[in-house]
Structure formats: structure tokens, C-alpha cells
């Protein structure tokens, strides 16, 4: 152990005095490529990682504890802060699990809008992934291009719900607002530009010699490992297992939509990168199909369930009973039936599910957020072993972890 004085400070990053001559280095939590707040303790033999210990919890806000102390509607905006790159997917996953618990279904137009927002969020999240991943690997310009497109997508979100990052765009039982006029035209413009832009990214990266050298055979996850470590989303499909919750356990309108699930059996970072690009194209395809559906649907936005969900504003302002219900729901909160529910949804990062245990009170008895990134962070201790220090950042980038949902 070092003796520290002001003249010989303690270098907490390095610990050389070990019998087996491996070096222990501390990566993060302030490292620019640590995706926020990841601390990794790496044991190195030369340049090779012998042991990796991810240390998390630097962004812990006690979201699950807060859920036990908030009514169901109060908690919804808090879910924004989980995966803050694609907030609506969290809002939606939470709203859907409460809806399943209540046994209600959102009306058709709300479903169309929700699916649109989910896919738009998926594109935003994938663009963000590509930007940060490429930046970590060392490709600067791609970051500027993807953030340009992400900005347009965030403008669309902003004109729908007023927020760019923490959307809270979904409510339990539907959506609060219809799409503003001209929104669909803007969306169409955005979508029409997307294939060209995706081609631009692919031209920059896919056959790029440096990109391939940095990504190919780096961060290999076998199919068995992916299953055992609880990998979902692109991490699972990147290992050759074709499982997408949108397709296998359809929710919302995904059952009616025509889209493909890209799979890669390369098992490495490059395969996952190709997968993300392909998924973006599929999201564009889904959004194109959703645009005409909006017009065909009835204008109702919130489900009709007076016990749980306030009536529309016109009814509240004109009818006594609706006002009474509204008052009770706002002051006391809804009381779902006793029971437990776990609803998985396919968020851009993987399987995002909320386990809710209700005891018939306005506060959830227990809420567990199954965050995909949490398990992908756990996988790092397997994935990093044997790789080189220079690839560590690539591998972290490739897992696409967001610390809002790792620490919760």
C-alpha cells in the first residue's frame, strides 16, 4: 500500500504491488466512454483483461422505492428517467403493465399514436447508439451526422409532447393529446430522408477498414451466454437467436404491422452494429404503415373506464358524476385490483418489463423494473475477459447500456 502525503499523492487508478504482477486499473465513473456512470475495475495482464468487475450504483435514485410511495399516475413521469434516451418506451412499458392489471385497452387512435412514438423513439435511440459507439471507437464525423437526424426526431417529439428528452407522452389508458396538425407531414418528411441518411452512415462505416478492424470479433457473445446472462434485444439477436417481443408476444399494433426481425449470427460487435442499422430501416417501414392508420381511426384518445381513468375534459366540465370521479382519481389515485403482473415490451435496448404487485391500494405494493441494460452490464464481467484494453470501450459501446435504467 502506498503511503500518501501531499507530495506523493495516492494514485487510486494504479496498484502495481501485486504478487502475480497484474495491474488493476479503475475505469470510470468519470471516464468519457463510461456511458454516464459505469465504474469498471479491470485486472490486466499486460494489455489483456483478466478480470472485470463492473461497479454500478452511481446514478441510483430509488425509482422502485418511489413507485411504492406514489400513486400510479404520479409515478408515470418518473419512468422517463430510466432510459432517458428513449423515454416514451419506458412510459409505455409502465402504462401497459398498469393497463393489463386494470384489464383495459387503449382506444385505436391512442394505439396508433403510441406505436408511432415508440418507433420514433427507437430510431432516436439507435441513432444515439450509433453516434456514441462510433465516437468511442474513434469515428467523429458520424456522430455529427446522426445527431443531426436525431435532432429532427426530437423536434417531432417536442411538437407532440413539448419535451425533447423526458417525454411523459403516454398516459395510463391512452395518450393525452392527438397529433398536432401537420405532424404527420413532418414525420413523413423525416422518414423520407431516413433511407438516404442510413445509407450515408453505412457508406461511412460498414466497409470502413478501421471500423471493421475495431469491431469484428470484438465483444463476442455466444448464444448460450446470451441466454444465460439474460441478454435481450439486439444483444440476443446479435447472437443468432431470433426473439423480438414485438413479433413473438405482440402488443399494441405490432400484430397488424408488416416488418422483419433482423438477426445476426456473427455474435460480435460488428454484427450488432449491422443489426441496429437494419432495425432503423424496419422502424421507418413501420412508421410508413402507421401514417394512414391514424386517419382511419376514431378520435377517442383515452380508454373508457370510469373507475380508473378520468372522463374526457368535456364530460368533466358538463357532467356532475364525471367531475366527481375525476376529483377522486386526482386526489386519491386509482385503486387497481389485487394481483401481480409482468408485462414485457421491446424497448430499443431489449426487454423492458415492469413487474407490479398490487394489493388494491392506490400505491403499488412492489414495482420491479426489469431493465435490459442492467443485465447487459452484468454480462460485461464475462465479455471483457480475454479482450484487450483498447477494445474495452468498443465493447461497452456495443452493449448500448444507459445508466438511468441500470441503477434506477
Amino acid at each position, binding site marked *: 500500500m502506498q503511503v500518501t502525503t501531499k507530495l506523493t499523492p495516492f494514485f487510486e487508478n494504479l496498484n502495481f504491488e501485486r504478487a502475480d504482477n497484474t495491474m488493476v486499473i479503475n475505469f470510470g465513473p468519470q471516464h468519457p466512454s463510461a456511458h454516464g456512470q459505469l465504474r469498471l475495475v479491470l485486472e490486466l495482464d499486460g494489455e489483456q483483461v483478466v478480470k472485470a468487475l463492473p461497479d454500478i450504483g452511481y446514478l441510483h435514485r430509488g425509482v422502485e422505492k418511489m413507485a*411504492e410511495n406514489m400513486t400510479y399516475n404520479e409515478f408515470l413521469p418518473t419512468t422517463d428517467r430510466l432510459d432517458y434516451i428513449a423515454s416514451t418506451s419506458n412510459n409505455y412499458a409502465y402504462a401497459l403493465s398498469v393497463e393489463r392489471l386494470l384489464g383495459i385497452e387503449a382506444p385505436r387512435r391512442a394505439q396508433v399514436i403510441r406505436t408511432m412514438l415508440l418507433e420514433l423513439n427507437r430510431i432516436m435511440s439507435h441513432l444515439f447508439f450509433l453516434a456514441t459507439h462510433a465516437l468511442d471507437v474513434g469515428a467523429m464525423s458520424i456522430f455529427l451526422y446522426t445527431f443531426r437526424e436525431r435532432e429532427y426526431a426530437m423536434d417531432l417529439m417536442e411538437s407532440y409532447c413539448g419535451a425533447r428528452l423526458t417525454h411523459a407522452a403516454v398516459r395510463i389508458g391512452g395518450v393525452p393529446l392527438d397529433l398536432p396538425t401537420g405532424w404527420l407531414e413532418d414525420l413523413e418528411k423525416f422518414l423520407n430522408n431516413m433511407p438516404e441518411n442510413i445509407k450515408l452512415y453505412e457508406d461511412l462505416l460498414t466497409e470502413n477498414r478501421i471500423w471493421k478492424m475495431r469491431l469484428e470479433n470484438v465483444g463476442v457473445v455466444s448464444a448460450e451466454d446470451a441466454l444465460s446472462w*439474460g441478454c435481450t434485444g439486439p444483444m440476443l439477436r446479435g447472437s443468432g437467436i431470433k426473439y423480438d417481443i414485438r413479433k413473438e*408476444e405482440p402488443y399494441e399494433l405490432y400484430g397488424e404491422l408488416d416488418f422483419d426481425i433482423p438477426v445476426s449470427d456473427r455474435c460480435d460487435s460488428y454484427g450488432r452494429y449491422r443489426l441496429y442499422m437494419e432495425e432503423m430501416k424496419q422502424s421507418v417501414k413501420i412508421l410508413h404503415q402507421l401514417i394512414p392508420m391514424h386517419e382511419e381511426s376514431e378520435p377517442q384518445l383515452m380508454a373508457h373506464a370510469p373507475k380508473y381513468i378520468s372522463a374526457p375534459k368535456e364530460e368533466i366540465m358538463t357532467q356532475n358524476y364525471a367531475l366527481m370521479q375525476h376529483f377522486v382519481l386526482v386526489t*386519491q389515485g386509482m385503486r387497481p385490483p389485487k394481483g401481480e403482473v409482468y408485462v414485457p415490451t421491446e424497448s430499443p435496448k431489449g426487454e423492458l418489463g415492469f413487474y407490479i404487485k398490487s394489493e388494491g391500494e392506490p400505491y403499488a405494493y412492489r414495482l*420491479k423494473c426489469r431493465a435490459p441494460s442492467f443485465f447487459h452490464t452484468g454480462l460485461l464481467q464475462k465479455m471483457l475477459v480475454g479482450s484487450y484494453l483498447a477494445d474495452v470501450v468498443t465493447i461497452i459501446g456495443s452493449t448500448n447500456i444507459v445508466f438511468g435504467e441500470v441503477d434506477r
Partner: protein
Amino acid sequence: MRKYTPKDSRQKKSYYTDRFWVAPRVPREDVGEDGHFADVVKTLKKYISEGYVELGQLVLHIKPKDNLAVLELLRDKCGYAMCSELSAVDYLAQSGEFEIFYQMLNLDLAKRARVVCRIKQNESIESIVPLFKMANFAEREMFDMFGIYVNNHPYLKRIIMPDDWSGHPLLKTYPLQGDEAASWYEVDKIFGKENRDVIGPENRDPAKVDRYDTQRFSRVGYEVPFGADISEGEEPNEIEYSKTAFVNYQKKSKQLKKKR
């Protein structure tokens, strides 16, 4: 007399309760005679004390000592290749037990099952890391949040809270703003234990407003000197505005009226 606070649950209680209201229950369906879930129940018959379908997912109640055997059968015989989540629910106040659930996924048939078992407060449970590596993190989190010891876990250590934290945050007895140890944790870390008297406990309620605190809270329209003691009341003072090149806000001039 001080207000009575229940000691077994420090969570928020509903203010209004109707004593004649009985909460309905989400319908539980029978597993049935055939179908995938019936086969699962048949395979695990020996271990199951209760099995039903709730909201499309199979729920199996087992004894805690059987958890490894049941999950292994589920994985190898019934095709539940992935454990997507595991955690606990605190029922200490009701029955002195924790309910532990394992959320399983069958990828081939897209079916989900939940294996539930209950352990007493001071009991521990066997780790499922030999079967599912995801439990490495998930069981650590369960230990951190509830203080449930997991036997034969490779690295059972706090994961989210700091290593030297006291208390387990998701217990019902743990208040939302943290207990007393929590309010001294950072004070001790930064200033040292000997300075507790000087610094005082950390305020862990972000919504707390102290109307007599003139250092941390602004008093718009009722400004007092920084740090002034106003607990005995304050002198009324006129609001003073600064003078600009064009308008003198000090006097109620015609200029100002014109501007309005």
C-alpha cells in the same frame, strides 16, 4: 403526544380508506387439462403447492428449498431457457416472510412463467447462478435491497448502494427519505464523524422548505439580508429596483406609466 407512526411499514398510506370496500382480485384461471402450461405443471407436479394462470402467465408456488431443482427442470424439460428477472417482495409485516419470484421465459413458444416461493425473515435461499448467470447481478441486487442472503453466490456484495451503507432500502420499514444512518452517511464521509455537531444531519427531503432559512431560500418580494435571523418576525421593507439609463424604477414616474 407525538403522532403514532406504524413501525412495520413506513411507506405512504392512502389518506382515505373505505372500510366496506373490498378490493377485487385479478382473475386467476385454472391451468386446464392440456396445453403447454398443463404439461409444465405435470412435469413439476412433485414440487408445486399451487399453480394457476394469471394474466396469461403461469404462476407456480414452490418451496424455497426446491428452487434450483424446479428451475433446472423448467430449463431442461420445459424449454424455459431464460430467466428474465428475479427479485423479492417484502411481506414481513403481514407474515414475516419475503416472497421471491423468478420470471422465466420460453423462447420457442413465447410463454412466460413465474416461479414464486416464500422464505422467512432470517432464512436464506440457494443461488441460481449455476443455472442462470443473470442471477449474478440480480441476486446481488436482491441482497442489497432486501438483505436476503443468497447461499453459494460467487460474489455476494452490495451492488447499488455503497458497500458501507446500513439498512436495506426496499424494505417496507425503510422510509423513503432514508433512515437516520442515511442522513449521517455523507456527513461522516466528507467531514468526519467528529464534526457531526458542527455540520448537522443531511436534509434528505428534497421538497423541504424552511421559511426561516434566509441562506438557502429566496424570498421573492420579501427580501431580507443574507443570513438574517427572521424567526422573530421581520421588518417590512419596500422593494428596491435598480435604475437603468432610460427608466428610473425607484420613482413612480410618468415614464413608467407610459411604458405600461
